[in-house]
């Protein structure tokens, strides 16, 4: 079964502390993995995609096929990072279409 699991509903860290938002997936092929962020009262926005291996707003995520994980990390959290974070999987062979499978999301709260 295709599934994305985000085990933490809420993660609270202090400003300046490292952050790791966990994402595990279940998929038999080679999926594309994404992280979307939703700031308060705003739309879902793409934060990262694994194929580009980029760093956005200090966040990075590495696809670990052995552990089927795509954890999101940031070495020093900022208050403005407080938001809802969703891990999403796009199945292989769906080029051009974005039938994402989303996780349940993790709310990150960065405390002053």
């Amino acid at each position, binding site marked *: 079964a295709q599934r994305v699991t985000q085990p933490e509903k809420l993660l609270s860290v202090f400003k300046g502390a490292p952050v790791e938002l966990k994402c595990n997936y279940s998929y038999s092929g080679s999926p594309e993995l994404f992280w979307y962020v939703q700031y308060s009262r705003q739309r*879902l926005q793409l934060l990262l995609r694994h194929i580009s291996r980029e760093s956005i707003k200090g966040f990075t995520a590495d696809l670990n096929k052995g552990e089927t994980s795509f954890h999101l990390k940031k070495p020093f959290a900022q208050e403005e990072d407080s938001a809802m974070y969703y891990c999403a999987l796009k199945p292989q062979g769906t080029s051009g279409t974005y039938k*994402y499978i989303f996780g349940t999301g993790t709310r990150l709260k960065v405390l002053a």
Partner: protein
Amino acid sequence: EPEVTQTPSHQVTQMGQEVILRCVPISNHLYFYWYRQILGQKVEFLVSFYNNEISEKSEIFDDQFSVERPDGSNFTLKIRSTKLEDSAMYFCASSSQMATEAFFGQGTRLTVV
């Protein structure tokens, strides 16, 4: 920067009534989607639409649901006879053939009473 826009932002309707949720995708995009998120649950795929027809739909997207691109700019989701369990946030999204992401609208909160 181009955005996907959705109207209304909040819709309240009585059970059994028909609702139409409207979306204006980004103008040069070719693929269109509806997702929904029941409060406290995950964002779920409903349907994708390309070349004026449904390309894929989930088991949630039953005969009560339909989508249409009536005029080349709007993309609508119709729910014929709403049920209480249809209460959710509905997100429209669009993508271009060459893009590596889908762009989401801000959502329409549907409340069925």
